[in-house]
């Protein structure tokens, strides 16, 4: 395919291009334009991914500090023991050699070995992926639904009491530090201080020693309550604000007057006519956040000791476990890129106005 970035970029800016392309009648073939568009998106994604891999590799290597020294800090080791570790991690090789080995491994979906855990990074990531998707996925879905629901109401009557209260509460939580909120919830609802009973666990994903699948599932649900609450509280504001402003834009639209003129009740006008149109801008946001679901909510996972990718990343950074953090970096970045790509591809399906 002979698409160039310039050609590929063309249709993107075509959001306002509601007049069917008059300039190039020769290439006006619709299927061709779709193929160009899709390929352009794929190419952009590939270039981003490559940049991320290169940046990730060198970024973590210019970090000050030496992983072997850090790992052996405070331990009674000899210089020979340190050398042996360096050899095992491949850190005795020149940088370009390390990069080639790493790049070659990537082609085989091999992200290298974690220094700290001495296991393939891929295995470590797969092990933690489930808990992260469970926590961050649940949190994102609830936050999106809650935010959109409240945002639609707030935007329908901007300046009203409901709007002011909802916006204020949402922005309050948005500006609260995640860490602090998490600890506060633990202190209030988990630690059993004073007369407050300890309703929920202080951390972890499942109580140890439970064997039955049902027991484990229930225990996990119980462990999820506080982290999910924290996460939702902190992020739902962005959905609320986008939905609110998007709905305010739609409010004056003619088709709403028409709908009212048909005698529809106010709630119906909002629900059936205004909200579906206002939802469009939130799609991008949702996709962006879905990409971040994989990277987890590092702070939430850390406060609640949730055994997910975020906590893995946090523990890797402390060493620094180069193999692990660069592997995670690639995976995090790849998931955001992938979700952006999906958003680019799905958006035209939802909104005919931006179709190539």
């Amino acid at each position: 395919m002979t698409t160039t970035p310039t050609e590929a970029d063309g249709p993107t800016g075509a959001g306002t291009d509601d007049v069917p392309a008059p300039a190039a009648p020769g290439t006006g073939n619709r299927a061709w334009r779709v193929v160009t568009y899709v390929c352009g998106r794929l190419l952009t994604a590939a270039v981003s991914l490559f940049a991320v891999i290169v940046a990730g590799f060198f970024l973590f290597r210019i970090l000050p500090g030496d992983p072997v020294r850090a790992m052996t800090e405070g331990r009674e080791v000899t210089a020979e023991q340190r050398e042996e570790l360096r050899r095992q991690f491949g850190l005795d090789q020149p940088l370009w050699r390390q990069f080639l080995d790493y790049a070659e491994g990537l082609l085989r979906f091999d992200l290298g070995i974690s220094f700290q855990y001495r296991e393939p990074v891929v295995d470590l990531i797969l092990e933690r992926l489930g808990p992260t998707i469970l926590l961050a996925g649940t949190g994102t879905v609830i936050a999106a639904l809650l935010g959109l629901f409240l945002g639609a109401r707030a935007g329908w009557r901007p300046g009203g009491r409901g709007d002011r209260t909802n916006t204020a509460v949402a922005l309050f939580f948005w500006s609260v530090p995640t860490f602090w909120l998490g600890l506060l919830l633990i202190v209030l609802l988990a630690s059993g201080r004073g007369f407050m009973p300890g309703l929920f666990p202080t951390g972890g994903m499942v109580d140890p020693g439970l064997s039955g699948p049902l027991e484990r599932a229930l225990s996990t649900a119980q462990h999820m309550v506080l982290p999910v609450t924290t996460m939702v509280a902190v992020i739902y504001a962005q959905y609320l604000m986008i939905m609110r402003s998007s709905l305010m834009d739609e409010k004056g639209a003619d088709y709403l007057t028409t709908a009212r003129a048909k005698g529809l009740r106010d709630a119906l006008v909002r629900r059936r006519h205004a909200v579906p149109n206002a939802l469009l801008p939130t799609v991008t946001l949702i996709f962006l956040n879905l990409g971040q679901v994989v990277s987890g909510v590092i702070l939430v996972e850390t406060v609640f000791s949730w055994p997910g990718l975020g906590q893995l990343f946090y523990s890797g950074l402390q060493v620094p476990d180069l193999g692990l953090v660069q592997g995670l970096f690639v995976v995090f970045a790849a998931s955001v890129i992938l979700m952006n790509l999906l958003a680019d591809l799905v958006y035209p399906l939802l909104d005919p106005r931006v179709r190539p």
Partner: protein
Amino acid sequence: MAQHHPPTGTLLRRAAASTGALLLIGGLSAVPAAADETDGTDGTTLTVAIAQQVDSFNPFTAQLAVTTNILRHVYDRLVTVDPDTNEPAASLAESWDTSDDGLTWTFHLRDDATFSDGEQLTADDVAWTFTTIMENDAAAIASGNYVSAFEEVTAEDDRTVVIELDEPQATMTALNVPIVPRHVWEPILEAEGEDFSDYVGDDLPTVGSGPFVLTEHSRGEHIRLEANPDHWRGAPGFDELYFRYYSEKDAAVEALRSGEVSFVYELTDAQATSLETVDDIAVNIADGKRFQAFTINPGAETQDGEEFGDGHPALQDLTVRQAIVKAIDNEEIVQQGANGQAVAAGGYLPPRYADFHWAPEGDEAILDFDPEAANAMLDEAGYDRGDDGVRVSPDGDRLELRMHVHADRPDNVQAGLVIAERLADVGIEIDNRTVDPGILSDALYDAEYDLIFTGWTVNPDPDYVFSIHTCDALPTEPGTMQGDAYFCDEEYDELYQEQLGEYDREARAEIIHRLQEVLYREAVVNVLTYPNIMEAYRTDHVESLQLEPTEGGNIWGQDGYWAWWSATPADGSSDVNGGLSTGVAIGIGVVVLVLVAGGAFLFFRNRSTVEDRE
């Protein structure tokens, strides 16, 4: 086209309902969990909150403190530490003797030690363990330092191990090497070959000779140890030990309050203080094992005498170094930096090691806090104050010194501020660089520092912390230093060799005192404080446990396995869990209430909107 979306309101409503359902499940699920905990008839459990991840359960390669601590309960050593006296005590070896030249050590093993698979532990296992560490680089990662002077290790008979040395080694009764079963590890070593260092010992349960057996590891969640009832020392008091992950110490402290864990360690002063008044929680404040120090760059050199780095030239002058130390009040650092939770330092080793500890007294105490004397010393040596009050060396170098401080240690940060202020009093300006450990470590190894913070945890045998200041510990080339201070002194090296060959404890202690005196006098390694160890446990879970040492000792990080082996369950340990079910009932009530209130609110809001509009 766009009009044919599903009715969004319904969607949102459905979502709200499922959110509620999730919360409800969350509340309800507490019921079976709590029930499970209360019927704890299947044994007694002690739960410890840990933070550090497990690197490996392969005893040949495991490095990190959490893993070596846990493995200490799984594999016995030849010799342990007596908690009453801090001196070496019998473990797998009942007794030991040395040849007259000090180069042959004979260990006599006890005959009732068995591995958890029922096999007898013999001298062959011991000899094989040491020989493997000596011969295989990949197996030397964890314990290679202990065998560097070993010539040969042989099993004379089932119960006698003979170790031949190249040179005398006083640390022979402090070999912190886990003895592993040959019949289990030899096949693993052969099968793994080159990749042995990547073998993480995840075949559970482990086969060991210690008082506990490692049976479960769920990474990032928990580690489970079961008591070995047949251990020769007697069965441990608890049936199982759980180590649960808390990535945040504050959360772990809350877990201790709620009773989810029984023990938390490495507390900050604030955390310890907040726990002191809580019922059923005992805070243990133990004498520090660690010394907190700063070192002065005396002019970094490699072993061949090649100078490198960019330390301030004036620091090569002993007078300046001594004046710096005299200008600093360790007692003030204890109060300001550690809120009093430390002991002001004299010598190098903390006082908990009573016979090795040395503190300057009388005429020896030449570096006690005395800013006037420090000023006089500098005046006399020709370091005159410039117009801005900062001194200038006779060579014309302004005494502006960089100070690298560990940003991740709050007590260091505080101490750094105090030091900067005190040095200003004597005309030395400090460029305070409070930085990440990585930056600090780079500055140290590249010798691009003037003053830099350091600290070590000292083992009952202090050989290692002295070895890092011998001339042999200087780097062979820049960046490869074994030690941490570029210190090199002939008298010191002679004393160091002497103590290594001195097997009489009292005589060795005497030499170790003189080593500390040299370090003190040279003012390169300057110890500020010995921070206290702060930890806490639930007295309604744990009836009693053995501290190490018995007086003022700690629980976590013992050199033996005394604490968890000796810990006995308290009678009332089920009370905490029993209380949870009331809590659960209230919890469900609250959740239901919130849902009902929320639903009602939405319902009325909906209606009012309609009416308002029409």
